[in-house]
């Protein structure tokens, strides 16, 4: 435990801390109301499970170590449908196993939060190589909400946000963590409990006879009835109608998939927020997410020292793609440079959006460490030449 004195057993450890990223993630979850966690050991996510196993029982919640990732992901879906705010945490290789269960949670609209601490193929080096896997992992048509923190503070803040979005849209939300920030210690400010906004899924007021577990507007979110309360809901992965009954009518199938994708996609501008830095006069925009935002700020400073007007666009959410926001940046600069720690994956998304509006270039490496500012500056100078 961090030294937190008398607040040790409260949900919200208000105050100033110097905390490990993985621990900040746990504290964010608890502040958001998380009361169920299931996970399977994997580095570099272990500190999340370990702290959860101590902290959750203190606040009346449940910790469970599953026999594998599959057990963990389904346990949190089961707990969520029984009314819990539930979370799991894993790292790249463990995420492979969880994709099936995430697909189930998408289909039955179970709010869950998954923290994926990206690592390099079995080794605990920094990477962002799984940015596409988090978007596309499960089979079947779906949208994903993926948030990309870049610091210990953001691991806390975005985990709260992940719970709130999961509850609001009744869908899995992924906190895309990285070895870099998960194993970093930084200053963390935890506000007072009353200052933290909490969203809870809308519970139905309908009678069990009138209740339809999957009835909602075209892009809407259905009302929730907890398991075991006499509502007789069917939560099946299979195509289902408003009652939850398995149904292979093409119109029913299409309606379901349009709604569960639409409820996320149509709200992309609210979900996937962005932040702009020094973009007012910028000729070149660096677009980055997660820990790669950090060297972008240094590269921006180096470039401006040299008289090159560089700005930074930080993607707080990477999925659904904040298309309009990226396009607005592209319209006002000479070039956009995608900065990420992989072979160039999200760069393709950015280039599709920016195509024809400005020049595009990439600062993309996958060497087990984040970019050096100089490496990004080199790309900036090349774009100008």
């Amino acid at each position: 435990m961090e030294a937190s004195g008398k607040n040790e057993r409260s949900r919200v450890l208000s105050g100033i801390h110097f905390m490990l990223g993985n621990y900040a993630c746990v504290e964010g979850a608890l502040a958001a109301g998380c009361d169920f966690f299931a996970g399977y050991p994997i580095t570099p996510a272990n500190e999340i499970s370990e702290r959860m196993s101590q902290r959750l029982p203190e606040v009346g919640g449940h910790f469970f170590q599953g026999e594998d990732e599959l057990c963990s992901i389904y346990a949190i879906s089961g707990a969520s449908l029984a009314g819990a705010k539930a979370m799991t945490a894993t790292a790249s290789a463990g995420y492979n196993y969880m994709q099936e269960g995430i697909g189930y949670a998408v289909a039955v609209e179970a709010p869950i939060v998954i923290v994926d601490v990206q690592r390099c193929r079995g080794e605990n080096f920094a990477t962002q190589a799984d940015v596409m896997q988090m978007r596309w992992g499960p089979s079947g048509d779906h949208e994903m909400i993926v948030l990309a923190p870049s610091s210990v503070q953001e691991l806390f803040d975005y985990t709260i946000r992940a719970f709130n979005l999961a509850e609001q849209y009744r869908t899995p939300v992924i906190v895309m963590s990285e070895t870099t920030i998960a194993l970093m210690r930084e200053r963390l400010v935890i506000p007072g409990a009353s200052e933290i906004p909490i969203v809870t899924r809308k519970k139905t007021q309908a009678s069990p006879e009138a209740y339809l577990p999957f009835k909602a507007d075209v892009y809407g979110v259905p009302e929730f009835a907890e398991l075991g309360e006499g509502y007789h809901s069917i939560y099946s992965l299979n195509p289902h109608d408003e009652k939850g009954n398995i149904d292979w009518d093409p119109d029913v199938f299409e309606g379901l998939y349009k709604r569960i994708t639409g409820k996320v996609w149509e709200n992309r501008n609210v979900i996937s927020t962005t932040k702009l830095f020094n973009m007012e006069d910028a000729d070149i925009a660096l677009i980055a997410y997660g820990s790669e935002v950090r060297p972008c700020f240094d590269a921006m400073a180096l470039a401006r020292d040299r008289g090159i007007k560089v700005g930074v666009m930080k993607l707080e959410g990477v999925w659904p793609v904040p298309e309009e926001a990226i396009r607005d940046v592209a319209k006002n600069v000479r070039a956009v440079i995608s900065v990420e720690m992989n072979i160039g994956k999200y760069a393709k998304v950015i280039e599709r959006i920016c195509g024809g509006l400005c020049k595009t270039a990439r600062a993309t490496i996958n060497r087990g460490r984040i970019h050096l500012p100089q490496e990004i500056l080199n790309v900036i100078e090349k774009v100008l030449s």
Partner: protein
Amino acid sequence: MKKNPLRKYLREEKLPHMFCPGCGCGQVLNTFLQLVDELPIDLNSTVAIGGVGCTARIPVYIKTDVLHGVHGRTLAWATGIKLQKPQTRVVIFAGDGDAASIGGNHFIQAARRNLDVTMLVVNNLNFAMTGGQVSPLTPAAAVTMTTPYGSGEPPFDLCKIAEAAGATYVARASTIYQPHMKGLMKSALLHEGFAVLEILSQCPTHFGRYALNTGEPGKVLDWMRSISVMTDKTKNMDAEELEDKVILGEFVNKTRPIFKGSSVYRGEEQ
């Protein structure tokens, strides 16, 4: 016309059900609903879980909360539900593939933990929903769609696995003796802790046609009767006589603490 009194427990809009003529799943559903009618089982505070397969479709006809549609993860869902809401009754309907193949690890771990659920494993000796492939409970040398030359694997004894893994109620019944099945199912449902009832059941459509060369339900039932022995009859039989026989009866019925989570807060004691 007089209605079956158990229909009130069924989602009538879902009928007729999808089970093949002669399938044992209907008998299991019928027996379960008879017990719902007779026992203090409140379907309003029950969750029935099916994974994937023929057996997994049993719960989707019952008027209760249902989870369905992912292969082998029934006990994983159940663990989350029971920890979050322990007062919920959870009844799992799993086929032999769901329980012993893809869900095998979850099965032994739930038994070890003594998760407080009832698991009804309908063993029709093959993967039937997918067209009759070999399963871990298919008898050795049996012909299936993926063992055209006869299976080269010996089957599990799921009840022995359950017992060794720590299940606190273990029994085997068969659709050929419905009153016996009903008695054991009643004990399993009333048991506190991990209760496993394996139900040897007939699949005329696939196992019957491929392994037994008959698609006639009656003949498949005759074959099942020929290989089944009640526990009390086994006393006078030697190992040779018992070889390739399926023993029906209760094997384990004991109590030990049920699973309440991987960490339990003990406050000031620590």
